[in-house]
C-alpha cells in the first residue's frame, strides 16, 4: 500500500538535500507510489548517492575548475577578435571576451546594454522607437548640414525638418544646448526656417575652425556614449539593444523596465546593482561566451571562479593584481608572475613563508597538503594500551 503525500513530505522534510533534488525526489515518489518501507530504502540510497557526489574535504576544487575551464579554452578561437552580430551590434566573443571577464576589465571592448520596456507598452513598436530616440545620443551631424561661412565669420546649420520630427527635438532646444555646450552666441534667424547661426566669441579664423570641430562633440539629446540603439522583437515584446553602455544614466529614462535592464559591462553592474549582481553577471557572461563557442563547461566551475572574484566585496581579477597577487605565500606569488620582484621584496622585508599551500610545497619538494597529504597518521603504541 502506497503512502500519502503528507507522509512523504514529513519523511523528506528534514533531509539535508538541495531544493531541486528534494523536488525531483518528491515528484518521482508521488508519481510512482511507494510503501513506507520502499520510501525508507529510497531515502537511504539517495542520501548515499548525494554524499558520494559531494566534494570531499581537502579536494583541490580550484585546480579542477582551472583545468575544466582552461582545456576548452584552448579550443577557442585565439586572438582573431571574432565578432558576431546580435541584432546588427557587434560584440566581442571567444577567448578575448573570456579574458576580459576574468581580468575584470573596467570597460569591455564592446559594451552593450539590453533595455527592456515597461510591460504595458512592450508590444508597441512606436513606443519602443520613441524610447530608443530618448536613449540614443543625437549629435549635430544627425540633424543638420554644417556650413562654415567665412564671409560673415559664423557657422550656418541647416536643419533637416524630417529628422527633427523623427528624433523629437525642436530648433529652440538645439540652440539652447549649443549655446550652453559651446559657450558662444547662437542666433535663430526669423527670415529662414529651420536654421541656426553660431557665432564664435572672437571673429578669428582659428576660433571658427575650432568651433566647427567642437560642435560635433555636443550631445543634443539622449545619453552620451550610446552610439546606436537597435530595436528587436523578442517573442511578443520589443527589446532595445544599445551600442555603448551607460547603466547609471539609463535608470532615469522613462518607459523602461529597470528590473530587466542589464549590460555586459560587469564593472557597471557592480557599481549600480552591487556585488551579488556582479557575481551573477560573471557567471552569465562566461557561460554564454563558452556556450556560443560550442563548449560545455559545468556551471559549478564558473560559480567557483565568480565566488572567488567577488568574495571581498569588490570585483577582483584573477591575476597578478587580484587573486594570485594576494596569496599569503611568497613562493606562490613568485611562481606566478614577476618572480624576481616578489623574492626581492620578501627578502628585504624578511617575510616568512609558512609553506601551507600547494605551490610552495612543490617548490621546496615536500608532499602537498591535499587529499591524503593532508592527513596525519599517528601510530598508537599497542604496549601502552595494555
Amino acid at each position, binding site marked *: 500500500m502506497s503512502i500519502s503525500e503528507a507522509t512523504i513530505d514529513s519523511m523528506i522534510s528534514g533531509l539535508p538535500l*538541495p*531544493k*531541486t533534488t528534494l523536488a525531483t525526489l518528491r515528484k518521482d515518489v508521488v508519481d510512482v507510489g511507494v510503501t513506507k518501507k520502499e520510501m525508507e530504502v529510497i531515502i537511504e540510497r539517495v542520501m548515499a548517492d548525494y554524499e558520494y557526489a559531494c566534494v570531499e574535504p581537502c579536494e583541490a576544487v580550484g585546480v579542477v575548475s582551472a583545468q575544466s575551464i582552461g582545456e576548452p579554452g584552448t579550443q577557442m578561437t585565439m586572438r582573431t577578435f571574432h565578432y558576431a552580430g546580435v541584432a546588427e551590434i557587434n560584440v566581442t566573443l571567444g577567448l578575448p571576451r573570456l579574458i576580459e571577464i576574468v581580468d575584470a576589465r573596467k570597460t569591455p571592448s564592446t559594451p552593450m546594454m539590453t533595455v527592456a520596456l515597461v510591460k504595458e507598452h512592450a508590444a508597441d513598436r512606436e513606443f519602443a522607437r520613441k524610447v530608443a530616440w530618448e536613449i540614443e545620443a543625437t549629435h549635430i551631424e544627425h540633424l543638420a548640414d554644417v556650413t562654415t561661412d567665412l564671409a560673415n565669420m559664423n557657422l550656418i546649420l541647416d536643419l533637416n525638418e524630417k529628422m527633427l520630427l523623427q528624433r523629437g527635438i525642436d530648433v529652440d532646444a538645439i540652440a539652447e544646448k549649443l549655446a550652453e555646450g559651446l559657450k558662444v552666441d547662437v542666433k535663430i534667424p526669423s527670415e529662414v526656417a529651420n536654421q541656426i547661426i553660431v557665432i564664435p566669441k572672437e571673429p578669428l579664423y582659428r576660433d571658427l575652425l575650432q568651433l566647427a570641430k567642437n560642435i560635433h562633440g555636443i550631445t543634443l539629446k539622449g545619453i552620451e556614449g550610446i552610439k546606436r540603439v537597435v530595436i528587436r522583437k523578442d517573442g511578443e515584446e520589443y527589446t532595445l539593444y544599445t551600442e555603448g553602455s551607460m547603466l547609471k544614466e539609463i535608470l532615469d529614462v522613462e518607459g523602461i523596465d529597470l528590473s*530587466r535592464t542589464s549590460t555586459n559591462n560587469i564593472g557597471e553592474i557592480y557599481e549600480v546593482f*552591487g*556585488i*551579488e549582481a556582479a557575481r551573477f553577471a560573471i557567471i552569465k557572461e562566461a557561460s554564454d561566451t563558452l556556450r556560443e563557442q560550442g563548449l560545455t563547461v559545468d556551471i559549478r566551475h564558473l560559480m567557483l571562479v565568480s565566488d572567488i572574484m567577488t568574495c571581498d566585496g569588490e570585483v577582483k581579477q584573477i591575476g597578478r593584481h587580484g587573486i594570485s597577487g594576494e596569496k599569503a605565500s611568497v613562493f606562490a606569488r613568485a611562481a606566478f608572475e614577476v618572480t624576481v620582484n616578489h623574492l626581492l621584496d620578501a627578502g628585504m622585508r624578511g617575510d616568512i613563508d609558512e609553506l601551507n599551500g600547494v605551490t610552495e610545497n612543490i617548490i621546496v619538494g615536500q608532499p602537498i597538503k591535499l587529499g591524503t597529504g593532508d592527513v596525519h597518521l599517528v601510530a598508537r603504541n599497542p604496549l601502552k594500551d595494555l
Partner: protein
Amino acid sequence: MSKFSLLDHELIPHHEVMDEDDLKTVLAHYNVEREQLPKLKVTDPIALEIGAEPGNVVKVIRKSQTAGEALYYRYVIE
C-alpha cells in the same frame, strides 16, 4: 513613477540583515567567526538599500541553477 527597488532586479538575489540569534546558529554550524565570511562593502548599493551597517551579517538567498536555492552570508565591512 514609483520608486524602483534594487531588490526587484532580476540579477539581484534577496538580501536581508540577519539578527544575532540566527547568526549564532549559522556561525556554529559552519564553525567560523563572522570575520571569516565573505565580505560586503557598506557602500554597496544593496547594503545601502537594506540599511546594513558594518559588523552586520547579510544573508543572501540566491537562486541557484544547480541547487534551486542557495544561502550565502556576507559580513559587512567599511
